[in-house]
């Protein structure tokens, strides 16, 4: 708690005293100050200083990416005492991710939600969740009509469950709404956010018709021992107050060939994830053999997230 507070304060105070502090910081390093803590914090300071002036992720070259990653890893080590491994794996060739959700299969256990929170280092204080499960009555079609905050034994008689998260639209309205180009569609179809370029205006949130995006009202708080250390620059790395985040199809996992955390955690097999361009993939089997539909298809957002019934 205490160290977290200090972190935020130093981050905020950072701008105001940037120059003078950098000078002192530099001086401390060069004079080889005896206090280990002081030395470390001054290094952290220099790192943050450099971080502040880095480029947009998409404009960085390989070396610049490596540098920012090593700075971030070092900062995490110094400020929180956690060794994280941030990677910048690019999109795999000939891969376009797609997702399907079986509404007849889901039982509303919410294992996916819990797994997502853990995997993506979501803020525990505000109980942020990327996935939302709606309990629906038979006959209802849109989650607008469902109950998104049920808490009772599941599955409930006469009900079905529908998971909603970022749909990774192929024609994403959120991307168009962003004034700083901090969010974009990657070649493998994942819509990502450059957290350091986001100014937290929330235009994207307003533009998204699917409740896909989340805003950090406070500095995310995660118990130290629960932090997922395998991270991606565009995925589950540390975020700060006042910017947007959202589901990234667990970019840190999917680009390594793994299933997303929600798919892996689902005990019923209601979630199907895979490569749309592989004609033999499970997702293609679902799309070609099942009755599938997408939410608000008429908006032309072209989501890569289908619902199906069997």
């Amino acid at each position, binding site marked *: 708690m205490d160290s977290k507070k200090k972190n935020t304060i130093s981050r905020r105070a950072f701008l105001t005293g940037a120059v003078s502090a950098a000078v002192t910081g530099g001086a401390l390093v060069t004079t080889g100050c005896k206090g280990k803590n002081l030395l470390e914090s001054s290094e952290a300071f220099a790192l943050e200083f450099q971080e502040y002036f880095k480029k947009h992720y998409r404009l960085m070259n390989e070396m610049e990416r490596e540098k920012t990653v090593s700075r971030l890893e070092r900062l995490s080590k110094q400020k929180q005492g956690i060794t994280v491994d941030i990677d910048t794996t690019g999109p*795999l060739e000939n891969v*376009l991710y*797609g997702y399907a959700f079986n509404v007849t*299969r889901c*039982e*509303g256990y*919410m*294992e996916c*939600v*819990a797994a997502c*929170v853990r995997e993506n280092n979501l803020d525990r204080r*505000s*109980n942020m*969740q990327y996935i*939302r*499960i709606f309990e629906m009555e038979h006959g209802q079609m849109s989650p607008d009509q469902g109950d*998104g*905050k*049920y*808490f*009772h*034994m*599941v*599955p409930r008689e006469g009900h079905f469950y529908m998971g909603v998260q970022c749909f990774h639209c*192929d*024609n994403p309205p959120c991307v168009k709404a962003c004034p700083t180009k901090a969010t974009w569609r990657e070649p493998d*179809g994942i819509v990502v956010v450059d957290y350091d370029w986001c100014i937290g205006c929330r235009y994207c949130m307003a533009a998204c018709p699917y*409740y896909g995006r989340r805003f950090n*009202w406070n500095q995310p708080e995660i118990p130290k021992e629960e932090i997922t250390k395998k991270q991606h620059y565009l995925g589950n790395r540390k975020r700060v107050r006042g910017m947007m985040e959202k589901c990234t199809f667990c970019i840190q996992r*999917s680009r*390594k*060939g*793994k*299933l997303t955390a929600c*798919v*892996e955690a*689902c005990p*019923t*097999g209601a*979630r*199907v*994830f*895979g*490569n*749309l*361009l*592989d*004609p*033999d*993939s*499970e997702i*293609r*089997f*679902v*799309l070609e*053999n099942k009755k599938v539909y997408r939410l608000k298809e008429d908006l*032309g957002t*072209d989501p890569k997230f289908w619902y*199906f019934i*069997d």
Partner: protein
Amino acid sequence: MSKPEINKCLYPIFLSCIILGLFIFSFLSTAFSNQEGVTKQYKKAVQKMDRAGQVNAETQVPKNIVRVLDEDQGGHFFTEARKSEIKRFRCSSCHNDKMVSIQGAADLSHADIKVVHGGKEKPLSCNTCHSTEDRDFLTTGKDTRIDPDHVYQMCGQCHFRQKKDWIGGAHGKRIIFWSGERVVMNCTSCHNPHSPRFAERWPKTYSVPLK
């Protein structure tokens, strides 16, 4: 009097301007919305992929799996082995040629098993699924023996629609990787064969209203 004449003269020019404008507009709108849509995109992708080729260093095939005797759309695939998960395996340690002479012995050793499967009045009998000749095996009747690792064959004789979906990937689930070798959960990794319905329970977590 000359005004309307000029107008008449300009008429065709106006018209052609409008037509040209429409042309340019439609051209631009198709050029800028190079949206062909994901559906079209994936439908165009018909080239078979080398599954093993997609694997990178971190994707390793899990252990304790068996190759499924059926093929899916992409060829062979694997499922979780079951025998190691069955507490009382090998059944033949008790079920052998020796007669058991204790009263209610089945109750003593299998009292925990209540069959809630296949109709309330007439649940399935043990011997529909378990081979009477060799208890280590399952059966589909008439001298067939099915290894418990290939339990999907046994379930599939009655639930062929689910089996078909399971082979394709719309029922059950794949484990760990979306790429590389396909490994899926077996029927009994999810369903208790004696009571296959999923249990009612509390959700793992809850959601707060969206801000």
